């Protein structure tokens, strides 16, 4: 058996190598997006310096695409969906755990179908429905679909969190005469805050990153989300490396920034209950 320092050195070498593999491609893209074209090809691995630095790609992206609109659309769709998924999901999770009534188990099972069965498979009918309702090519359509898609998983996760809230709190509130609706909104809901991170990883991140529904439900440039907008832009300017790298970086950087800010919560949310 290896001695302690040698073995832990080996572990660190493996983990550093894998981290480099995970981070490398992202760094490469972001780094080169700040370089002039001949530097991108001449020395791809070199960071930008005074002579190679260039923002020409970014200028092009802003000029040739509605990147600001895409970004705003994604933000609206994701935030509204997130709010509704959390609100409706927490309400349903609370009702299903707290009030047992005839059919509540059946209802819980019905809601859990959506955890495993992807909503995408209903796309044909969703598109028909949205067209019939006149919601085609609107952000509302996306939000409705994403809320439906996110609810089952969020109800499942939030139920786990609801069960961890001591039952005595609810009893104390009842002794205090707090009405049932207020018990949820003023006692239970505030305590579900730690669940937001877990719900975000499993339902919100996929919404931000989704390509499929924007592709089939939105047709005009002004309703594209960032993922679809960038995808279309990339297809169009495929030979313009400066623009392509800049567009990629602009899609990557906000996500990375938010991720780095919230990574502690996100990861403890993922490993919920097991944080050491």
């Amino acid at each position: 058996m290896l001695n302690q320092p040698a073995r832990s050195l080996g572990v660190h070498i493996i983990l550093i190598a894998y981290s480099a593999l995970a981070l490398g491609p992202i760094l490469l893209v972001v780094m080169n997006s700040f370089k002039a074209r001949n530097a991108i090809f001449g020395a791809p691995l070199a960071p930008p310096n005074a002579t190679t630095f260039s923002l020409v790609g970014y200028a092009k992206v802003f000029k040739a695409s509605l990147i600001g609109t895409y970004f705003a659309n994604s933000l609206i769709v994701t935030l509204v969906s997130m709010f509704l998924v959390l609100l409706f999901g927490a309400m349903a999770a609370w009702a299903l755990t707290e009030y047992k009534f005839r059919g509540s188990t059946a209802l819980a099972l019905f809601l859990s179908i959506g955890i495993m069965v992807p909503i995408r498979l209903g796309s044909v009918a969703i598109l028909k429905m949205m067209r019939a309702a006149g919601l085609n090519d609107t952000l509302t359509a996306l939000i409705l679909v994403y809320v439906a898609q996110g609810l089952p998983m969020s109800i499942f996760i939030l139920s786990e969190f609801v069960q961890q809230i001591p039952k005595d709190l609810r009893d104390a509130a009842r002794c205090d005469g707090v009405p049932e609706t207020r018990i949820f909104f003023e006692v239970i809901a505030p305590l579900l805050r730690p669940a937001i991170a877990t719900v975000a990883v499993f339902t919100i991140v996929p919404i931000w990153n989704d390509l499929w529904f924007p592709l089939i439900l939105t047709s005009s440039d002004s309703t594209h989300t960032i993922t679809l907008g960038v995808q279309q832009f990339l297809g169009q300017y495929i030979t313009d490396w400066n623009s392509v790298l800049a567009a990629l970086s602009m899609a990557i950087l906000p996500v990375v920034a938010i991720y780095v800010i919230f990574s502690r919560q996100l990861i403890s949310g993922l490993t919920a209950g097991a944080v050491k």
Partner: protein
Amino acid sequence: MAGLHIDKINKSYGPARVLADIDLSIVDGEFVVLVGPSGCGKSTLLRMIAGLDAPTSGDIFIGNRLVNALAPAERKIAMVFQSYALYPHMDVRKNMTFGLKFTGVEPSERERRVAEAARMLRLEDLLGRYPRDLSGGQRQRVAIGRAIVREPDVFLFDEPLSNLDAALRVSTRVEIARLHRLLGATMVYVTHDQIEAMTLADRIVVMNQGQIEQVGKPLELYYTPANLFVAGFIGSPAMNFFPAEVESIEGDKVRAKGPTIARVTLPAGSLTRGSKLTIGVRPEHLTAGAPGDFSTTGAVELVERLGEASYAHVRRADDKLMVAEIRGRDTPAPGQTVTFSAPAEDVHVFDEAGRRL
């Protein structure tokens, strides 16, 4: 202020009967302690008084008012939980006033009540703190304060001190006794701790497997337990039991003999020759050496020295162990054979069904 009357309460979870025909009357201002082994239904009974769980059948009256159909807040009760159940996202002041918002108490009145409760419980400096920044004892005081501001007719406590360390338990116990004197409210208190029960209670209710075994003043339960269960449950270390049989009856004297008993003299009752009995003697009533109405002999196996007293574990003739409390420094050595005896007034006799004679 109000008394509490419980009439033929039953509670079943599916086939499991958790409470069976509970009857209990508590007078206004009384402090009643519920004790019993784990799982006997103490919390269940308390929660039904509170209105948190519904009885399967039976009636509950609070101050002559039938409260079966009333929600907890309408019953004029307040409950203090073992886990404190403080709202973690509200500061102490908010914890106390939160419930008052919904029962139509004016803001100025709320403030007055909080100030008064805080003064009573010495919480004035903690009003702006969150529960996570309080010690266990402080949290418990806040939980009690939250009950006080509701000005309830009946206080319900479910093992309120069991999460505190020994020293805090004693001081908070004294605090609760003081509050009871001060407020004069009816209190129902569940505990596992015998000392709490004995010191706080006006009356103790001993429960076992969903039934009430005995209700009585603390010393009543100690000196005249109604049956074997109460005799064994109240007192620590527990009472020693000896099987016996009536040997002869001479006037009002009964002689009973069992494998472990040399001689016992009892006032005669409805006993006949050959009746089976159980004799009970508390460890603290056994004396080594001295002659008495009851005596038994055994070999000392182990002596636990606690300082103010020692417990001798003695192997009896029927191979069971009994415990004798020995005062003073002179303790028998392990291996030594010793005769222990007790006077007749400290000997408890139970019939075959376990009832006190």
